[in-house]
């Protein structure tokens, strides 16, 4: 039990986004309390659990859900936590534990491209954001300096100040892609929260190639680093505290939070300002759960948009054998991509996309394939080496447009604590499907340039999900069509803010975490402005004219 059940700021969720908002506010001298549904985890145990897991392809294996704070599991079988209402499945993945889902992310830490926030004005699709890329720039910079982001300037996202670090050393495999695809496709280093040198007490990458499920040496920034920094700044964290209701007063201000401990004992926490940061699925679920007679459709939901506009990044892909030995699996998992298709006039017709190369070791997958094919004897070893050296994969990362029918709702089914499970309603529209079709020509050309044989396209009409949950609490200037304002404040409740990928009103083509962190830092600044000197820098940055 915590000594303190009241604070200036109470944050729901200790993922990277909530924890970094908490850290900044604690640094400004606020008393900050973080309520986290899941338990504390230990890196060494996660590494051991992965090594001992019989399903090495299942990165969730080392993260079994706790009975009081379940999260979705699909392998070896669906645990039925995230209900699927269809028509297309939305198998979102996240982790409910101290530090949240970035325990096993790929640490791609991208900025948007400037036009991403104006697609309605420019291309007549989706919606415009209530802020400009230029307004985001200083917050991106602050986020990149906290996370320790390594990157190059040639990815289409302008910046005022240099990256904190040089790009991470390019694996041989990616160098060969870069050399052989030029000039048709420029292959560039991914922008990543992964150390290319010692940074902030964490070491440079040593190439364990296990970024997802876990970086054993913490060369990539994790939510747990954000939690530790928040705690060092004075924030208090209560683990195993499952918030199940947000309570408002007669005026519509938030008065308190209610949480269950694992024994289902009930606790009430009061505060002045509340930040909802329980991710793009659990956060809207909690708003819907907190319906009252004054707010029968749930909190922050006068627009009816809570949970709606669910977006992610679907992917189709091509696997093939290159005509030379590349040996994926040396160095980090996601080093390089093609970024020239992130924007263009075609966006009025079909989705933009990024083309992403994996550098994940192919040994596990190839071994399974060989066993499945019944390749035994001396041929097994020969084939394993041949295929593991040459098998490569390229995927697209497709934009999905906001559509109110795609949404997170409350399921009639309840979890072990008696809390309704989330239910996903999802479809992939023609705008996105057309882009998948267009990108097939890129796949084919890439394979051709790499001397590809044994081409295997992902099954027609099948999309893999990238776990970038967006849109469910979209920001906008109009309270009739959005949930929060440009600073993350809910239109309906003056002292309730949302920090999440879920506030992004469109998904663009980039992994969404860095944008959510930048927005959360901006929200924290709005709640409690930083000391004079810092504010001046940030302001100067904001005013600056971007090239």
């Amino acid at each position, binding site marked *: 039990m915590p000594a303190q059940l009241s604070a200036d700021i109470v944050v729901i969720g200790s993922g990277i986004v909530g924890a970094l908002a908490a850290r900044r506010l604690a640094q400004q001298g606020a008393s900050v309390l973080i309520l986290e549904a899941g338990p504390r985890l230990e890196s060494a145990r996660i590494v051991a659990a992965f090594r001992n897991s019989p399903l090495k392809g299942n990165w969730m294996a080392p993260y079994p859900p706790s009975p009081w704070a379940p999260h979705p599991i699909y392998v070896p079988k669906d645990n039925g936590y995230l209900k699927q209402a269809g028509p297309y499945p939305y198998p979102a993945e996240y982790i409910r534990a101290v530090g949240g889902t970035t325990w096993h992310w790929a640490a791609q830490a991208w900025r948007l491209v400037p036009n991403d926030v104006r697609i309605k004005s420019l291309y007549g699709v989706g919606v415009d954001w209530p802020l400009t890329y230029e307004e985001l720039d200083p917050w991106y910079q602050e986020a990149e300096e906290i996370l320790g982001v390594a990157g190059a300037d040639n990815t289409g996202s302008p910046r005022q100040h240099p990256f904190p670090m040089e790009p991470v050393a390019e694996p041989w495999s990616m160098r060969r892609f870069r050399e052989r695809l030029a000039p048709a496709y420029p292959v560039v280093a991914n922008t990543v929260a992964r150390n290319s040198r010692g940074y902030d007490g964490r070491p440079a990458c040593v190439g364990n190639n296990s970024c997802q499920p876990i970086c054993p040496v913490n060369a990539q920034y994790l939510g747990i680093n954000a939690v530790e920094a928040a705690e060092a700044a004075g924030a208090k964290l209560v683990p195993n505290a499952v918030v199940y209701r947000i309570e408002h007063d007669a005026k519509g201000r938030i008065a308190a939070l209610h949480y269950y401990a694992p024994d289902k004992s009930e606790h009430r926490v009061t505060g002045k300002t509340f930040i909802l940061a329980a991710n793009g699925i659990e956060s809207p679920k909690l708003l819907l759960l907190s319906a009252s007679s004054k707010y029968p459709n749930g909190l922050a939901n006068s627009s009816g948009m809570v949970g709606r506009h669910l977006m992610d990044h679907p992917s189709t892909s091509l696997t093939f054998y290159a005509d030379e*030995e590349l040996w994926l699996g*040396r160095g980090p998992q996601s080093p390089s991509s093609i970024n020239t298709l992130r924007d263009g006039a075609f966006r009025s017709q079909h989705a933009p996309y990024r083309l992403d190369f994996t550098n994940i070791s192919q040994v596990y997958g190839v071994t399974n394939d060989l066993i499945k094919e*019944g390749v035994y004897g001396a041929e097994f070893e020969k084939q394993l080496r041949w295929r593991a050296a040459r098998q490569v994969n390229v995927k697209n990362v497709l934009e999905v447009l906001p559509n109110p029918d795609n949404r997170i709702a409350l399921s009639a089914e309840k979890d072990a604590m008696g809390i309704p499970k989330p239910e996903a309603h999802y479809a992939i529209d023609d705008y996105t499907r057309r882009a998948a079709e267009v990108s097939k020509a890129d796949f084919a050309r890439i394979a051709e340039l790499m001397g590809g044989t044994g081409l295997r396209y992902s099954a027609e009409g099948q999309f893999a999900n990238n776990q970038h949950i967006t849109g469910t609490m979209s920001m906008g200037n109009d309270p009739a069509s959005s949930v929060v304002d440009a600073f993350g404040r809910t239109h309906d409740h003056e002292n309730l803010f949302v920090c999440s990928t879920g506030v992004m009103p469109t998904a663009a083509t980039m992994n969404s975490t860095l944008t959510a962190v930048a927005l959360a830092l901006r929200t924290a600044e709005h709640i409690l402005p930083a000391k004079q000197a810092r504010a001046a820098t940030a302001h100067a940055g904001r005013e600056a004219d971007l090239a």
Partner: protein
Amino acid sequence: MATNLPGSIGTRCDSPVDPSRRRLLAGLLTAYTASLIPWALAQPAPHADRGAFTALSAILVGRQALDAAQATRLYDALAAAHPNFPADVQALLALINERHIDPLQLQGVLDGEHSPLAPLPRQIVSAWCLGVIGSGEGARCVAYETALNAVIVADVLKPPTYAYGSYGSWAAKPNT
């Protein structure tokens, strides 16, 4: 890539063996199977079931040496998971001995004949090459960095979660 496994049976050939246990693996093989795994001929096989497992394993995974301690562990785990395991192993080895089945054709032959032995090769190869016994929810991991799929590529790759090398070492052309 040669194994550098300290306990490999292949390196034990000239260690003194108790004469009362001098039954050799060769006794379990025909000329055909012996030709697939010549190294095994002089291996001691004090126990027919375990000897048959070693011989069959070597044929299936196509290796010229297998780690003895790993063989014991895998045999015990497989025998515990599948009640008929020892008899099935003997039967499959006998079948290959008699019919001179090429390992590459084996699965097709067993599937084509709807043989009750059809699941056996995958069970054994999964154990050696993935370090996994069983499947689905009942699957169990018994080896990772010593599983053969890691050993076979160990000159180029480290199993995920093991550091590849100092920062940037992956930029060089793989040395194979």
